[in-house]
């Protein structure tokens, strides 16, 4: 099929941005391939955004649609805010991967298919009719199709090594990675260094992976099938030092940084759950920061151990996803009543119940706000991107410590696993965090106080922000008793007095409301200060909304975008901002939870754009919804 003469030199074409989707069996090493290529591009200076998408089963039946794992990467020489609506290139390791993802490929896009994954068995497992092979039946004529026998070429590259066939085949993904690096004119250096680290103690595997990686690269160079390489120049990003970061890494690093700034030991109590477990993994690698990780027996013990640690004077943190947060509800109420610092992270996934463990959703907003008995308002903040996970984790700690309250931080599976470049700060530039410690005291006699009631330490006396002092066991002269049972104002003693209960409910609520006084003024992400339409977003929809809003503005439309980070209490400036636009659109990956809150709070006729498919929005979906609302 290839008629190009062997001597023909390869051409290099420039591309502004590229969306590439790697897909294969969940055992094919797709996530590794994708994340390595991401690192190479980021190091080169591209802006990147990624979307790993994998099945809940660790090894779903091989070759089936259920077992397809994908890693979508958007990289460009321009600002990139989403993993891309449609793909330019689809790399598929088998028939199921093609079938599951073809709809995401743009017309005329490129398919690179591992022909070995299209044998009779794979075709049957992925549900193609008998005798039909998409690689040869012209059904893909609208695309540029390259078939490569990755399995065979990998085995060839490893001829003469002592590895077994199974082990040889396991490095197939390195062939693909080598080839893609060639295709996009990237150096293999970064991946080679990674492999050297990963297989430090297994020289034969290191050797094999390096060989196959190089073979993939050389294949691009020598194969006659491929005549064109592409080049994506570095993006014009603000000056500074960058690294790549996923949302879960951002949270872990943010927690450590904030604990250091507050001078607190970080204690992390957690029970493994998708998609939050990576926070536990990351923190447990950082014990040299004094981080203590505790894998608890269940979700309840996870939060309770964190409460105990905070009571003991550390920074107690726990993280989970929706089902686990449900189990933590009672303990959250206790932390609220105790008025001690606690950070609770919810990396949301599709619900209800077990729901869609590996898919993303924003449907736990109400759970965060209302999921407790009695009136227990807890500050809720939300991260909008992988890098914002760092900022918001830091903010969560600052609010929790300085206001003596549990704080819920909402992330979700999309940004938890997605990566983007991060212009990381220097430690000295991070904001200070000041715990409101009580002052230890000598005995009444020694300090010359009378020992009357009024002179006693009052654990629930409040400062001007309604915040009580933090007295930690071991501090002299501050012994006191706290608990979940209603307490008397100031003394903290048990009280069943009706007036006192009402007072305490109000004092606790007021303390949380006053947190809004500490926020920076609300500001638009983009668009005019007043106009026809305001798009209000929160959480991980940021990239898609940002992209859509900027496009609409370029089209000359009067559209602005504000992205909320404080879900409770709201930023006080939001009320006035909403009044300056004729219409309000609230895109959410739920049935309209923020929209309903805004309607209740501001009597605004906000319209929803709601997607509940376990998948993030495309920017096009938002653009179209905005246009329709503007027209209506």
């Amino acid at each position, binding site marked *: 099929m290839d008629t190009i003469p062997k001597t023909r030199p390869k051409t290099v074409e420039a591309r502004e941005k590229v969306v590439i989707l790697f897909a294969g069996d969940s055992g094919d090493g797709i996530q590794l391939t994708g994340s390595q290529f991401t690192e190479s591009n980021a190091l080169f200076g591209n802006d990147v955004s990624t979307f790993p998408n994998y099945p809940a089963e660790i090894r779903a039946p091989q070759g089936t649609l259920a077992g397809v794992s994908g890693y979508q990467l958007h990289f460009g020489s321009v600002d990139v805010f989403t993993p891309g609506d449609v793909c330019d290139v689809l790399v598929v390791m088998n028939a199921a991967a093609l079938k599951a993802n073809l709809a995401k490929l743009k017309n005329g896009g490129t398919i690179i298919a591992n022909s070995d994954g299209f044998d009779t068995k794979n075709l049957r497992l992925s549900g193609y009719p008998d005798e039909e092979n998409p690689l040869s039946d012209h059904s893909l004529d609208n695309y540029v199709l390259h078939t490569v026998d990755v399995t065979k070429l990998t085995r060839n590259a490893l001829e003469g090594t002592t590895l077994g066939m199974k082990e040889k085949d396991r490095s197939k993904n390195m062939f693909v990675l080598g080839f893609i690096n060639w295709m996009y004119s990237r150096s293999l250096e*970064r991946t080679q260094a990674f492999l050297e680290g990963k297989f430090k103690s297994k020289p034969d595997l290191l050797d094999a992976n390096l060989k196959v990686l190089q073979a993939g690269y050389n294949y691009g160079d020598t194969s006659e099938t491929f005549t064109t390489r592409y080049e994506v120049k570095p993006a014009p*990003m603000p000056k500074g030092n960058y690294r790549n970061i996923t949302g879960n890494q951002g949270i872990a690093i943010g927690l*450590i940084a904030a604990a*250091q700034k507050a001078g607190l030991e970080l204690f992390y109590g957690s029970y493994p759950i998708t998609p939050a477990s990576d926070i536990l993994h990351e923190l447990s690698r950082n014990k040299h920061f*004094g981080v203590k990780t505790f894998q608890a027996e269940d979700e309840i013990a996870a939060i309770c151990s964190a409460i*105990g640690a905070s009571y*003991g004077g550390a920074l107690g943190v726990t993280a989970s996803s929706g089902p686990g947060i449900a189990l933590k509800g009672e303990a959250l109420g206790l932390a609220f009543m105790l008025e001690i610092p606690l950070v609770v992270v919810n990396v949301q996934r599709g619900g209800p119940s077990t729901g869609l463990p590996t898919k993303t959703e924003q449907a736990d907003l109400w759970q965060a706000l209302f999921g407790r008995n009695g009136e227990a308002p807890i500050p809720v903040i939300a991260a909008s991107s992988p890098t914002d996970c760092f900022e918001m984790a830091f903010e969560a700690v600052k609010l929790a410590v300085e206001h003596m309250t549990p704080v819920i931080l909402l992330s979700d599976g999309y940004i938890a696993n997605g990566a983007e470049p991060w212009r990381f700060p*220097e430690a000295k530039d991070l904001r200070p965090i000041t715990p409101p410690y009580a002052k230890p005291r000598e005995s009444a006699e020694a300090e010359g106080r009378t020992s009357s009631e009024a002179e006693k330490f009052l654990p629930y006396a409040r400062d001007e922000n309604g915040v009580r002092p933090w007295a930690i*066991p071991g501090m*002299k002269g501050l012994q006191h008793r706290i608990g979940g049972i209603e307490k008397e104002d100031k003394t903290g003693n048990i009280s069943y007095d009706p007036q006192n209960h009402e007072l305490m409910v109000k004092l606790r609520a007021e303390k949380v409301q006053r947190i809004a006084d500490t926020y920076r003024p609300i500001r638009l992400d983009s668009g005019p200060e007043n106009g026809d339409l305001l798009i209000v977003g929160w959480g991980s929809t940021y990239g898609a909304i940002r992209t859509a809003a900027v496009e609409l503005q370029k089209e000359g439309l009067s559209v602005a975008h504000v992205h909320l980070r404080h879900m409770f209490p709201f930023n006080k400036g939001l009320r006035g901002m909403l009044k300056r636009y004729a219409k309000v659109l609230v895109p959410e990956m739920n049935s309209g939870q923020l929209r309903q809150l805004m309607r209740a709070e501001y009597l605004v006729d906000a319209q929803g754009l709601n997607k509940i498919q376990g998948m993030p929005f495309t920017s096009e979906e938002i653009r179209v919804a905005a246009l329709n609302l503007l027209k209506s």
Partner: protein
Amino acid sequence: MSTLQPAAPAPKKLDYSSDQQVRWCPGCGDYSILKQVESVLAQHGRPKEEIVFISGIGCSSRFPYYLDTYGMHSIHGRAPAIASGMRSVQPDLSVWLITGDGDSLSIGGNHLIHMLRRNVDLNVLLFNNEIYGLTKGQYSPTSPEGAISKSTPMGSTDHPFNPLALCKGADASFIARGMDRDPKHLREMLQRADAHRGTSLLEIYQNCNVFNDGAFEVFTEKASKAEHTVFVEHGKPLLFGNGTKGIKLDGMTPVIVDIAAGEATVDDLWVHDERDGFKASILVRLFDDPREKDALPRPFGVFYVSDRPTHETKMNAQVALAKQKKGPGDLDALLRGENVWTIG
């Protein structure tokens, strides 16, 4: 905890009482336990601010309010998890956990066994009254089969837990039993529990005179105590019935022998070795219903002690090792990560 030097001069016992009025029912066994705890604290003389009492929910869990130490009255069943977190970051304080049979063996059963296997250094006082008192009289996980209660008018159909066998199964490093009606022995058990490093599990038979009066009468009252209890001491033979009877191990089976009648001599008896885990597993199984004929007596005392390292010791050792290997955490290095590129 035992390594700390007692402060001089020893504070008076009353120093450890808070200003709160004690509000258990008149005649409740809890009063006696509170008194013995205060007495042991005074004897030890530890500064008040270095002592923490953490409880769950139930009558016994009001305990922390009555002591002028640090205290937390938490939520039902979760005190072990809270105390485990607290202990992880506060290795030097004296930590006590107050719980009941419902709190620790029903709603909090999971946390209890996991705390025991981890061997978190604290003293658990498990007030067992075989009834739910605070909710006014439902049967508990330690109520005997057939127990008539508000929720079991026809008798309980549930087989009860044997708390110490459960704790032994969870590899508790210190297991003991005392009773509210024997203050001297209880004080001794409290001291032993306090001296042990690791989770000290002390079950205390406690009479609920309102909802389950006399549940342990046969063990606590003078007339029957000698016949139905055996007070075990390390290195001493298992004698009871005022020295007239003893327990012999027939293979792995404990049997009662009548010393007075010459069935065996004291030398034939099972000699208690609190370091012997295998024998402790048998000892915790001396759990016969005292109403049955030839029932084995119920043991009291320290059943088992082992010196395995505590959870927080190991946790802190890892942190220390990580610091030694990687150096104390450098925040800028963490922020920077491993792959950095510069623009500008």
